[in-house]
């Protein structure tokens, strides 16, 4: 990279270059600290034109590039594998406009999700997707991974809300797909290729997002159930709720272990290892509590609900702090899978019969069939030793259920070698061909996804 420093200086300016190893360290590493890159240079462009010039130069000189947003990937998708150039979108953080009639916001891809919401709040709108990393993750990264999150059961996938994109292709060409029309049936929808492409086909620099109104009221119920089948019965009822905002599931064996990590946080129940917990959020105008009381009481009497905003936040905090608390319990192998919701517990028991073996637990977006299955080890050695055996079993079992080996986290580095099993040779072949169409020199996010 050293021989190119002067060229990059011409393109972006010294103030948009990071070469100090200390400053590069957090950019070279993912937040779970699974992956360590060796990049010696990061650039922080301030415009699409600059991104275009960077990529054009890299394409001509066969310099590999890793696009980086908030660096919140669960699968090592945003950090270098070797010494690729890191292209950080962080400075492209302008929200360009909001159309109050169509509720479409136009923004650069470096805007942090929380900042989007802070801006939209004045207009009583919000981003249609939401995830725990909202304080760090960026718009571009969310789109590049078709981020899932907590609102999918209510709003549907992120794809539904992207009306247009501006993408810089590996050859430097700026592809203007910045459509603002809600309806546009004029042939192949190219922008869909880039959504979820994990930065392997182009770098997203701008987006037109259809926003969702902020619900007038939100009400959260936290339920304690005696068996997993009860959670499925509850799901069947909840799917009939027009105002269903979220349906999240946590095994008691996780929440009970989380208690010591959240000592000041008000707990909805004295979590028990042999119980099952569900968080249901209802949102809309004029929430009629009696309607929900009647229907939820048919499933269990153990239901609490928030009387004010701070109780609402506390209930959500229990759910949202699960991933970080699991990491505090040991070394975590985590699997983000889509399988039929009623098979979650069966799945866990197939992997570890009677749940014996290393501590294993699942939680997740039961409403979408998205399970986060975690296995916790006391040492890294134990983890690596068990990983090969159990991972193979997990992938095969998921495939046998026609599930997805990555529901929402993406593929990145972590699940790359399973892609052909997941997709099948034919489909995977077409994906690789498309890659060659857009990135013949394979400069963009190499060794990721494909």
């Amino acid at each position: 990279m050293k021989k190119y420093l002067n060229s990059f200086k011409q393109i972006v300016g010294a103030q948009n270059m990071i070469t100090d190893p200390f400053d590069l360290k957090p950019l070279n590493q993912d937040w779970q600290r699974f992956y360590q890159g060796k990049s010696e240079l990061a650039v922080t462009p301030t415009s699409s034109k600059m991104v275009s010039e960077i990529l054009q130069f890299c394409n001509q000189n066969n310099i590999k590039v890793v696009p980086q947003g908030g660096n919140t990937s669960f699968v090592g998708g945003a950090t270098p594998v070797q010494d690729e150039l890191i292209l950080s979108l962080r400075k492209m953080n302008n929200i360009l406009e909001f159309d109050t009639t169509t509720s479409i916001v136009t923004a650069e891809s470096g805007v942090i999700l929380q900042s989007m919401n802070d801006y939209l709040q004045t207009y009583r709108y919000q981003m249609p997707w939401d995830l725990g990393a909202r304080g760090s993750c960026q718009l571009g990264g969310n789109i590049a991974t078709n981020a899932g999150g907590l609102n999918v059961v209510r709003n549907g996938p992120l794809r539904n809300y992207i009306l247009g994109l501006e993408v810089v292709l590996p050859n430097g060409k700026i592809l203007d797909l910045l459509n603002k029309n809600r309806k546009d049936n004029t042939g192949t929808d190219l922008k869909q290729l880039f959504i979820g492409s994990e930065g392997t086909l182009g770098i997203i620099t701008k987006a037109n997002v259809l926003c969702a109104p902020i619900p007038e009221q939100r009400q959260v119920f936290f339920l304690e159930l005696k068996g997993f089948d009860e959670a499925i019965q509850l799901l069947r009822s909840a799917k009939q709720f027009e105002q269903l905002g979220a349906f999240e599931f946590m095994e008691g064996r996780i929440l009970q272990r989380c208690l010591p990590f959240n000592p000041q946080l008000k707990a909805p129940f004295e979590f028990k290892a042999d119980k099952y917990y569900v968080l249901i959020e209802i949102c809309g105008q004029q929430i009629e509590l009696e309607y929900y009381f009647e229907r939820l009481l048919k499933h269990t009497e153990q239901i609490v609900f928030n009387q004010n905003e701070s109780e609402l936040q506390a209930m959500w905090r229990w759910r949202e702090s699960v991933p970080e608390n699991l990491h505090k319990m040991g070394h975590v192998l985590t699997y983000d899978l889509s399988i039929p919701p009623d098979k979650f517990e069966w799945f866990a028991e197939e992997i570890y019969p009677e749940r014996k073996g290393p501590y294993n637990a699942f939680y997740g977006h039961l409403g979408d069939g998205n399970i986060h299955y975690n296995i916790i080890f006391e040492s890294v050695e134990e983890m690596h030793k068990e990983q090969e055996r159990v991972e193979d079993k997990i992938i095969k079992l998921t495939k046998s259920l026609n599930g997805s080996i990555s529901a929402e986290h993406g593929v990145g580095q972590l699940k790359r070698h399973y892609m052909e099993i997941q997709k099948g040779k034919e489909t995977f072949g077409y994906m690789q061909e498309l890659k060659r169409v857009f990135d013949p020199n394979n400069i963009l996010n190499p060794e990721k996804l494909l």
Partner: protein
Amino acid sequence: MKVLVAVKRVVDSGIKVRVKPDGIDLQGVKMTINPFCEIAVEEAVRLKEKKLIAEIVAVTIGPKQGAESLRHALALGADKAIHVTTEARIDQAVQPLDVANILAKLVERDNYNLVLMGKQSIDDDFNQTGQMLAGLLDWPQATFASNIQITDGIAQVIREIDGGLQTVKFKLPGVITCDLRLNQPRFASVPNIMKAKSKPLETIPLDKLGKLHNSIQITKTEAPAIRKGGAIVENVDVLIQKLRNEAKLF
């Protein structure tokens, strides 16, 4: 032993308030039990669970919606509720001395052994009502309670004061006002909120018990000044210059 717990309905502290020239905009705003009052209810319920008291009566002063806060208190474990109704603005026109007088009337009527309440409400932060009530009843008081023990009619209370913790003891009846660290209130459960509907709720128009004198007038309500950003200075000389000329510290 019978306990009266006074609860005030306030703007939910989790939401952003809007300031109008005549006060906080209450239009369509979510309201809930004052956090310190909720702590008082929770403490009463815990004392009842320890079998130290037999009956908890929750009381609130306010308009129709005040009944929701009473139902919340009933769902947490209060046995009965009293709704003193008034259409006056609770965050402005319902003031400590008037409230204390009304509560004193109820104490005389129903013979409570203990009155529990929050140390202050988060809308006016007066921190006066409990103290005034004790004065009117000529009862002992313990304010800013972070721990309450009751044994054989004697209350022992640990108070949070500026210098640390002070322990006081008095023979009941008395008034105790509750502070943050006393307890963490439980969540209300759905079955309990439904049972709360059938618990006795007595409605009394305010003028049957007292009067609102509005002796304190609110002359202005304004939002705090927007914080200006800080600055990183290059050296100590610049720092001193800014402290002297801009912050006007010396």
